[in-house]
Structure formats: C-alpha cells, structure tokens
C-alpha cells in the first residue's frame, strides 16, 4: 500500500488483494470526507471460454469448462452437463443424480474448508495470513486442512482426480465408484461431520462488523432439497423462474474498469446477491437436520443480511454437505449403467446450479452434429461484482475517518467474505483510495 498526493486527493493503493482467486483491485475516491467513487477493477485478462467452446463436440464441454476454475471445476461441469442434457432431452437416472450431488458435496467441502480456514478467518482474527494464524491457532488450521483433504479425497475417487475431474460426462459418468470404495471414506466423513459442527461454533464466535444492507438474495431452489443441481431460481424479492428465463430477468453489462461483466436485474438495473448466505436465507428449511440444528444453535438469527457472516453460512453448508454425503454413501447402489444413452440432435438448453460461491448459469446451443454453436456462462462472481461495489459504497462512509490501513482492511475483508473467484468471472485485487484532503 502506498500513499500519494495529487490535486488535493489522497490515494491508497493495495496493489494485490490476497486470498482471493484471480487478479483485481479496489479503487476508492473521497473528497472532503465524502465518498465519491468505488470500483472493483478487474484486470485479469478475459479468458474467452464461451468463444472457444464454439465448434467443439458437446461431450468435450464438461472437460473444457472444468478448466475455468481449479477450486470449483465441478460446478462448471454440473451446470454444463445439465444444460446440455436439457438441450438433448437426456434424463439420467436417480443413481446418477445422487452421484452428481455427492460430487458437488465434495467440492463444497474442499472449497468451503479452504475459504473458511485459510482465506477468510484470518480477516476476523486480524492475521495477515493463514500462516500467521496457524502459529496461534494450529488446532483450527489442522482441522481446516483435514476437512479440505477429505473433500479432495472424495473428488479424487468420483472424479478421477481432485482438480479438474475427468469422469463427468453428458449423460452421467465415464466411471462410477464401487460401493466398497465409498464405504472406505465413511469414517472420515463421520469425523468431518463433527468437525464441521465445531467449525460452525468456531466461526460464530468471531466478531463481525455491524452491517446489514437491503439485498435481493438469489439462489437455485428445489422443492425438497437444499439447492445444488436443480431446479428453479428464486429470490428474496419474490422471483420464481425457470432457468430458461434467466437471461430475461438478469442482464450482464460491460463496465470499463472491469474485464468481468457485471450482472444486474434487467428490469431495474439493481444488484443482487448470490452465494452461501443467499442459499441459506432462501432455503433454510431444506437444510438437513444436523445442519439446521447447527444454524439454529450458533447464536445467529436467520435470515441474515450481514455479508461478513457469510463465513457462518459457509460453515453451516459444510455440515450440510457432510450430512448429505454420508446419506448418499450409505444408500449408494452401483448403477447398472454409468451414463444415459444420447441421441444427438440439434437443440438448446440451459441450467443453473449452485457453485460454492453461488448460482452458476450455463446455456448452450448445439447443431445436429452435436457441435456447440453458442455458449453462455454467467459465473457467481460476475453476479456479485456490482453487489460488492454497492456494499463498499454503503460500508466505507462509516470508516472514512479511520486510518488508511483500517479502510483497506475492512474493504478487503468485505470482498473476501464474498469469496470472489475472479478467474472464473473474467474472466486479482488491489485497493486504490483517493481521499480528498
């Protein structure tokens, strides 16, 4: 961070916002003690995935889109296979559906454990990094590492490898696990379920800034399940739509300071909020019993509008993911066929699933050869980008009288609470602060 004086304005720069996925920065300008401008500058180069998917065979899509993110490749695989199956009229059987849910649980576990323990908790405990935190909180960091390892282990088994899995295909899986392979993981998952509940207790004891803006929370919704792979899209403002209506309701806009698009409500141009806090607020009653009990007993009231408390929602979802995974493992029967048969024809389809960071929308149009003619991907971080700027606009006036380092810390803490995945949305983060003095 460096200070500089120019035309009576003070500039604060955080050249590198750490503990986020991707590259970007925050620009803040104030004059006479008044906040004038806030921008999330995303300068990670665009990645053009939608363009180079064109002309590819539909069955290549899950492998290509998995490469969008090293933390949440399953989300990209799940949204793509569901969208392509909608285009092709394919409906995999219940065993495949449960295995996909188990795969998603694995990703939520590894991603949430990483974010809670290594990326976000140091903010609240005032450490520069997880490494610094580990010296004083070794038990917690070891717990986080083991939780993450368990998630990775399940990903490895189901996906063929822990990063960028290779087993997922349109119609199902290239290879499904043997029951005895899953049973071997059971002991780890029983430990994980207890450790996840300890995580809820630990993170809810943290001190959070007082901040509760009015939000429109948006998430996937299923009639009987906590949302992961399907089905409709709902919001706290009463929205209830089929994913096919997503592009009529939500609009992606280009802004000059960002290589990531910003999503807003098409009708009123307003920002909205996706992610664990949105999911939990909108689907509390669908949490499994242990997760719901943990959420009720942690001392927080739900729905919760404090974005800093996303870490608690993430921990509750960690409990849910372990509970859900154990149920699926216990009930697992090896399917007779690992994937549904596909009759290739031209078609168009879309789907929304819940990535660890929030709703992830995909749409594909394929021709009668099964080649992709058009692809659209709207990642959760793009959808939260405008919301993060709006939050900073509301939060920063209350801290402008604080030292520059404190303003920077609060800003970074807020952004990291969203667990942005900038690589996914560009498509790295630094704070530049102009303070008129």
């Amino acid at each position, binding site marked *: 961070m460096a200070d500089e004086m120019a035309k009576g304005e003070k500039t604060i720069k955080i050249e590198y916002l*750490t*503990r*986020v*996925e*991707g*590259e970007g920065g925050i620009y803040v300008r104030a004059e006479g003690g008044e906040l004038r401008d806030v921008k999330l500058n995303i300068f990670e180069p665009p990645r053009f995935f939608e363009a180079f998917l064109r002309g590819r065979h539909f069955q290549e899509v899950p492998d290509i889109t998995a490469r969008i993110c*090293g*933390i949440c490749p399953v989300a990209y695989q799940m949204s793509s296979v569901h969208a392509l199956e909608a285009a092709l009229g394919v409906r995999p059987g219940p065993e495949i559906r449960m295995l996909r849910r188990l795969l998603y649980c694995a990703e939520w576990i590894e991603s949430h454990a*990483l974010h809670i323990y*290594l*990326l976000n908790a140091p903010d609240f405990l005032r450490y520069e*990094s*997880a*490494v*610094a935190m*580990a*010296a004083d909180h*070794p038990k917690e*960091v*070891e717990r986080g*590492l083991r939780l*993450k*390892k368990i998630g*990775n282990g399940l990903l*490895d088994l189901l996906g*063929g*490898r*822990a*990063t*960028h899995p*290779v087993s997922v295909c349109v119609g199902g899986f290239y290879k499904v696990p043997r029951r005895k392979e899953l049973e071997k993981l059971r002991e780890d998952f029983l430990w994980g379920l207890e450790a996840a509940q300890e995580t809820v207790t630990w993170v809810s004891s943290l001190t959070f800034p007082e901040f509760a803006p009015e939000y429109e929370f948006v998430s996937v919704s299923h009639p009987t399940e906590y949302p992961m792979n399907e089905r409709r899209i709902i919001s706290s403002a009463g929205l209830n739509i089929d994913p096919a209506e997503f592009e009529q309701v939500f609009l992606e806009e280009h802004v000059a300071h960002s290589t990531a698009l910003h999503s807003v409500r098409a009708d009123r141009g307003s920002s909205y909020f996706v992610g664990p806090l949105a999911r939990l607020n909108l689907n509390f009653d669908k949490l499994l019993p242990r997760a719901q009990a943990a959420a009720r007993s942690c001392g927080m009231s739900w729905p919760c509008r404090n974005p800093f408390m996303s870490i608690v929602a993430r921990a509750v979802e960690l409990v849910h993911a372990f509970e859900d995974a154990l149920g699926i493992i216990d009930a697992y029967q090896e399917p007779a066929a690992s994937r549904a048969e596909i009759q290739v024809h031209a078609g168009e389809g879309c789907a929304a699933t819940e990535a660890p960071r929030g709703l992830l929308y995909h749409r594909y149009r394929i021709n009668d050869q099964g080649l992709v003619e058009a692809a659209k991907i709207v990642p959760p971080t793009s959808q939260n980008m405008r919301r993060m700027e709006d939050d900073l606009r509301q939060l920063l006036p209350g801290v402008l009288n604080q030292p520059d380092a404190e303003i920077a810390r609060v800003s970074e803490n807020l952004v990291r609470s969203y667990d942005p995945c900038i*690589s996914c949305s560009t498509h*790295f983060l630094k704070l530049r602060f102009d303070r008129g003095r």
Partner: protein
Amino acid sequence: MADDVTCGGREEAAVGRPRLMVLGCGNPFAGDDNVGLELVHRLRARGGYGCESRDLPGRHARPCTSTASRRGYGCEFRELPEGGPGLLELFDRADIMLFVDAVQSGAPPGTLHLVRLPSRDVVPRALGAVSSHGWGLEEALRLALALGRRVPRLMLLGVELESVAQGTRRTTPVDAALEAVIEHFPQVQAALLDSESALWSGHHSYPPGGGLSLNLQQEVPQ
C-alpha cells in the same frame, strides 16, 4: 491418483528408508516450460527407479528391478498439484522432494541447476505459483513449519530455458538437457538419497551440452 505412480510408502518410512518424490512443474503448452512435466512423464514411462508403473492407463503393475528398488528405496513421480495447500499434503509422503522446473537465471539455455530449497537463489513464486489464491511452495513451507509438521528435504532441478512462448515446442538446448537428466537420473537419485552428498550444499550448475554429471568439477563456477 490416476496420474501418479507410487512405490515405497509409509511402510518404508517406518523402517527408516528414504522416499524420493519427483515433482514436475510447468505449463505443458508453453515451450520449454513443460520440461519438468515431460521429465516426470518420461521417467515414469521408463519404469525402474524403485517405482511401479501401476495406475497408468493401459499399463500393469510390474515389479521394481532397479538398484534403488532392491535397496528398498521408493520413488514417486508426480505433477505439481494445483491448489497450493495440496502441496502441504505431499510433504507427508516423501523424505526428499525434487522439484523440476524451467528456470531463468541468465545462464546459457540448457544449463542445469541443482539448488537446495529454500534458497535465496530462487524467486519463490517462480517455482511455487501453483495457485492464484497465492499459495505456492513458500506458503506451504511456512504453514508446515508453523504447524510443526515434518518437512522433507527439498531440492530444485532447474533447466535454464530459452523460450516459453505459448504453443511452441521445447527448444533444442532444453531437449538436450532433458535427455541428459534422464540418462543420469540413477546417479541423481542416488545422490539425493545420500544425505552426505555434496549436492545438498548450495547451488550447483552444469553447462549445456556437457551432460549432467555429479562430478562437481564440471560445474559452472558460481
């Protein structure tokens, strides 16, 4: 993991036999930057070195026949995992870790560098930038130390690069260096497994074209 070949595990550690892990680093599509990955693939495909080639598609486990294997040494070839904390988890699996990567020091292309890590000679993120969450080798090392975890002995085998242009093939000097490492790998392996080896002191460089020899007289003067 499907991509990994393992021979020698905890059982061997339990009886005090060292386990070597070779970690290939780099970008497979960026010219000389794929030299670490290529070395791991080639050595794995060759077999021996105390390894079994199990889990490789289309291959069957076969017994270890190398000298290292007969002595009970284990050697595991891996690609550097993505997602930095994953590296921490590998520390438990080895007594010695050899990172192989393309490096840029200004030496002639194809020059080989053996550097004990951590070292001021190595810019940390050049080797460990395995995750945009900011987790590399340095972070994994610091976290392991903060947690009081055991850390293996670490060595970098750096191959001086000529070009890392996207979509290009490896250059001739780097290819020659790769062949030299493969030819001399048994000696490298033996030296790494010997904690008294002079290799564990400082930074050793070997000129391009001269092959990799553990005769330190062939080193480039530092």
